[in-house]
């Protein structure tokens, strides 16, 4: 057995490159969440009085080595963060690990890997919502077509940030209720579904604004306001849904 702080030092030393990459990538929201993560891990390690099995530390270091060979920044960062969390925690739990991993600057990667499938899914859901409301929109790729107008789901409309925020919320809910892995998987699925529905709601609302069907002042401020309102609705739906078991 190795004292937690010593195990963390070993893991941090072995994963120095991941930490260096993390420091280089943290800016904006990513910087704030990375600093919060560093503070939480530091606080947990300073207070830790437990020990970590030496075999676990060896496995974490081997994982770090494999991550280093992957030549993929996010994998290296994820390996060292997961390793440090394992050292800082007496009884590691999946939702807290997920929170730690969501705190690293993951948004730029999500923007590339997830944005387009999200846009496509949101466009399908939005077209469905509008058709249910009697608006006969066509759909081509990620564009809505209506009376000769094309309304496109561009990058900021993909809902990646809403998805990230709701995954954080689901992880928090899972951590509070000490969710089992199966229950936690359910929470993540529910969060993803709410994010998709929330984004479709936002896009459908913006459709009425952009096509002039609703007489409201347009412009970027209205775009932002509709986005915030849709996020508020999604969060309002997600909170009771995710905390159902806690209340019970």
């Amino acid at each position, binding site marked *: 057995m*190795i004292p937690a702080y010593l195990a963390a030092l*070993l893991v941090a*030393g*072995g*994963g*120095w*490159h991941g930490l260096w990459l993390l420091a280089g990538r943290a*800016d*904006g929201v990513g910087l704030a969440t990375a600093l919060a993560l560093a503070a939480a891990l530091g606080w947990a390690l300073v207070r830790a009085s437990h020990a970590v099995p*030496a*075999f676990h*530390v*060896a496995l974490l*270091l*081997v994982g*770090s*080595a*494999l*991550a*280093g*060979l992957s*030549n*993929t920044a996010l994998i*290296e960062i994820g390996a060292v963060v997961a390793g440090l969390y394992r050292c800082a925690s007496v009884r590691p739990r999946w939702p807290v690990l997920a929170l730690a991993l969501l705190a690293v600057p993951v948004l*730029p*990667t999500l*923007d*590339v*890997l997830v*944005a*387009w*499938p999200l*846009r496509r899914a949101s466009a399908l859901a939005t077209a469905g919502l509008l058709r249910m409301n009697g608006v006969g929109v066509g759909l081509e790729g*990620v564009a809505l077509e209506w009376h000769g107008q094309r309304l*496109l789901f*561009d*990058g*900021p409309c*993909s809902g990646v940030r809403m998805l990230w925020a709701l995954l954080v919320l689901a992880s928090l809910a899972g951590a509070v209720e000490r969710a089992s892995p199966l229950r936690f998987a359910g929470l993540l699925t529910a969060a993803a579904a709410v994010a998709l529905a929330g984004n479709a709601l936002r896009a459908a609302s913006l459709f009425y604004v952009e096509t002039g069907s609703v007489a409201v002042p347009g412009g*970027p401020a209205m775009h932002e306001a509709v986005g915030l309102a849709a996020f508020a609705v999604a969060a309002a739906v997600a909170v009771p849904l995710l905390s159902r078991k806690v209340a019970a």
Partner: protein
Amino acid sequence: MRALLALAALLAAGAPLLPRSAAPRPPLHPWPTRFEGRPLRPLPPGVGDAMLARDFPGHVARFSDGRRQLILRQVARATRGLHPPRDCFGSMGYALSPLPMRVVAGSLASCFQAERKQERLRVCEQVRSAGGMVHPDVPGWYWHAVTRVDAGPWLAVMTVERVG
């Protein structure tokens, strides 16, 4: 166990330092000489070009059409090394705000405003395929390239225009 730990720590710390073979680069195709009817003049690499070229399995060049700068990147496979312009400007300290899509060279391009001190830029991006497909941004291109719906090769076009 101590020896095993020391070996594992050494492996972990040393793995990122192992020499790696550089990603193969596709052959360089001639750069366009005109864009939207305006002649292109080559420029020396700019401040952010090193960032764009980092781990990029392709070719990068900067041009001016007299009105704006164009950063062109040639790539022949799906890669995360084709960084979205948004990431590059964000990491250079610009405040970003989304702009509506615009038509650039006859096709839609994703745009944003980048602002730093007194400098305000309009940046637009699109990825043009040799087969004629045009993707209005890198995320849209990435999935088409991964799934081989669009076989490439591609020319990623970034236009940077001073607006204030």
